[in-house]
């Protein structure tokens, strides 16, 4: 089914980016346009969500650009999974935008901040909506190009160093991604994800290509996605980049851009490659569980190892940090581990209900992490704006001088720890639930260890930064109303998401079903009989 609304969020973001670029001589006009663009983007996404996923019959919509029928043209696809990711990204993006308007100095805003921000959103939206694996690369580049500049935004010594690392790493990642995509095209003869899915499921019908190279190339691609998501062996760029970027940008990087990597893993491995059978391929030292010599099952142990390592590395790293941003950056490595852990279980699960629940758990946790980490990074920005430092030794007693701000931080921390009725509780509960259903003691142990570490570093942050006697710097601090208002609004929305969790869960389940329903995806993109435009 071909519908125009699929392209709407992309267009809104693009038009806003260009409009803010054109009006950069007129500061106020630019900021107004930028904020209007943020609201418009949210509206466009809401329109898309209402069409795709009106909490009931969910459908997959595809938009063939210029009417070139897939698999020959470029396709945009909207299903419940993309809708879910887009919906929470749009909310966080708007909050971060309002925050930026008050946080970033006016000169910085005028020069480049707003166009870059919206171009980043263009890239994020494109990655969520594209149905073409080469276009995924292009959207990644659009997103990364803007994020490079945003990381180096303050252009001081530490910012340039962090950006250098971030840029070089991502450029190598892009080259690797190109290699993987080129190889996949050469092997399977297509770039369209639906077509690719159809072909790897039944190689004999499409030129009888070998499946072994597909496995190798998909693993190469996986390394790139893991790099974007900041998973364990590829996590080392995260702390420096997040610390260097302006607070609202860190909120976006951790809350939204990282989730693009997670989304790509779900989409490409759970939708596209899931039906590929490996046949009699065997790996020394790696036993694929029963029921699946499927390609997806091969990734189960890999995802599991990476998730476990992320949880431990991130958690242990966060406990030892002396500044809020560093702590939050390490924490986000650990939290991404929590998102990937249920995915790892879903990848090897043979039971369909466990599979759906695993992906749904990952989606709920991604949503919760997006909101909570976005809130925490912005709270950290507000603290920096008020006090002028985020080093714990210079902080203390913020709860007395800035009670609302501290309250917001507290709610964000509780959401990540997983206290009911906040949305984080359900995210953690689902992770434990999935691990419990397959009776994986190791997964439970890792999740429990990670949860304890989360409590440890957040209580340490709270005690040193917000509790106790106000330090000299804190006493003379003054918070900005807008910054605190955004933090409090996000804190409230976390509570609302927790209280109204029924809706979130239904949306996440619809997303998980969409991710696993290969047939519907292929039919929506390629048409059941083919031939109609």
């Amino acid at each position: 089914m071909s519908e125009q609304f699929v392209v709407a969020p992309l267009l809104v973001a693009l038009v806003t980016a260009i409009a803010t670029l054109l009006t950069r001589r007129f500061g106020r006009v630019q900021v107004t346009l930028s904020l209007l663009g943020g609201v418009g983007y949210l509206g466009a996404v809401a329109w898309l969500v209402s069409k795709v996923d009106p909490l009931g019959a969910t459908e997959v919509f595809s938009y063939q650009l210029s009417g070139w029928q897939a698999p020959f043209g470029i396709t945009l696809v909207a299903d419940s999974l993309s809708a879910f990711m887009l919906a929470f990204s749009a909310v966080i993006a708007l909050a971060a935008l309002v925050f930026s308007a008050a946080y970033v100095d006016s000169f910085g805003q005028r020069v480049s901040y707003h166009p870059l921000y919206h171009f980043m959103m263009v890239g994020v939206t494109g990655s969520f909506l594209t149905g073409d694996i080469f276009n995924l690369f292009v959207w990644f580049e659009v997103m990364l190009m803007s994020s490079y500049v945003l990381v180096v935004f303050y252009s001081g010594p530490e910012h340039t160093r962090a950006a250098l690392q971030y840029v070089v790493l991502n450029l190598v990642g892009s080259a690797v991604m190109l290699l993987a995509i080129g190889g996949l095209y050469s092997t399977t003869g297509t770039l369209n994800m639906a077509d690719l899915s159809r072909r790897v499921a039944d190689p004999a019908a499409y030129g009888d290509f070998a499946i072994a190279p597909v496995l190798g190339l998909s693993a190469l691609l996986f390394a790139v996605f893991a790099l974007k998501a900041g998973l364990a062996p590829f996590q080392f760029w995260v702390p420096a980049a997040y610390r260097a970027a302006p607070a609202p940008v860190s909120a976006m990087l951790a809350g939204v851009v990282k989730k693009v990597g997670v989304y790509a893993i779900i989409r490409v491995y759970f939708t596209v490659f899931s039906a590929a059978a490996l046949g009699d391929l065997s790996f020394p030292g790696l036993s694929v569980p029963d029921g699946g010599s499927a390609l997806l099952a091969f990734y189960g142990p890999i995802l599991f190892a990476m998730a476990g390592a992320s949880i431990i590395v991130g958690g242990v790293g966060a406990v030892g940090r002396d500044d809020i941003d560093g702590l939050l950056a390490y924490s986000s490595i650990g939290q991404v581990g929590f998102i990937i852990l249920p995915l790892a279980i879903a990848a090897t699960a043979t039971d369909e209900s466990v599979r759906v629940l695993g992906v749904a758990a990952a989606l709920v946790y991604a949503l919760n992490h997006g909101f909570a980490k976005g809130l925490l990074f912005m709270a950290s920005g507000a603290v920096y704006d008020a006090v002028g430092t985020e080093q714990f030794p210079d902080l203390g007693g913020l709860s007395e001088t800035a009670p609302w701000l501290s309250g917001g931080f507290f709610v964000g921390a509780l959401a990540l720890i997983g206290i009911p009725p906040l949305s984080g509780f359900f995210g953690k509960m689902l992770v434990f639930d999935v691990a419990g259903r397959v009776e994986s003691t190791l997964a439970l142990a890792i999740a429990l260890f990670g949860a304890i570490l989360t409590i440890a570093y957040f209580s340490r942050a709270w005690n040193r930064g917000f509790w106790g006697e106000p330090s000299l710097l804190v006493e003379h601090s003054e918070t900005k109303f807008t910054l605190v208002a955004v933090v409090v609004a996000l804190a409230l929305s976390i509570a609302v998401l927790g209280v109204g969790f029924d809706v979130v869960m239904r949306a996440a389940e619809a997303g998980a079903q969409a991710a696993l329903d290969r047939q519907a995806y292929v039919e929506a993109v390629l048409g059941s009989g083919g031939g109609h435009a």
Partner: protein
Amino acid sequence: MTQFVLAAVLGTLFALGTFLVLRRDVVRVVWGVTIISQSANVYLVTMGGLSGGVPVLGHGGHGGGHAVTDPLVQALVLTAIVIGFGTTAFALVLTYRVYQEHGTIDLLELGEKA
């Protein structure tokens, strides 16, 4: 024959790129990344197969017009080259900025300041 030559050249280019990326000098690292991404482009071209004489059907002139080289990979490479230009330019400017901020482009010295 062409395949073997290309494979050898690509391997050498990737090796060279990797070698440069691991240097201490930031400019060399940027060169390394550029070489790697350019060799990825060349690799992409080879993925379309080298058998044909003409890229598009109906052009006819060269090579008899019977065997067709896959034109899609060339479109992909064009896109990748444009993106590569942008990122290389940014990386070079960033290198200059790093030099301005730190007074050095030696990665070892940069690391020690951290």
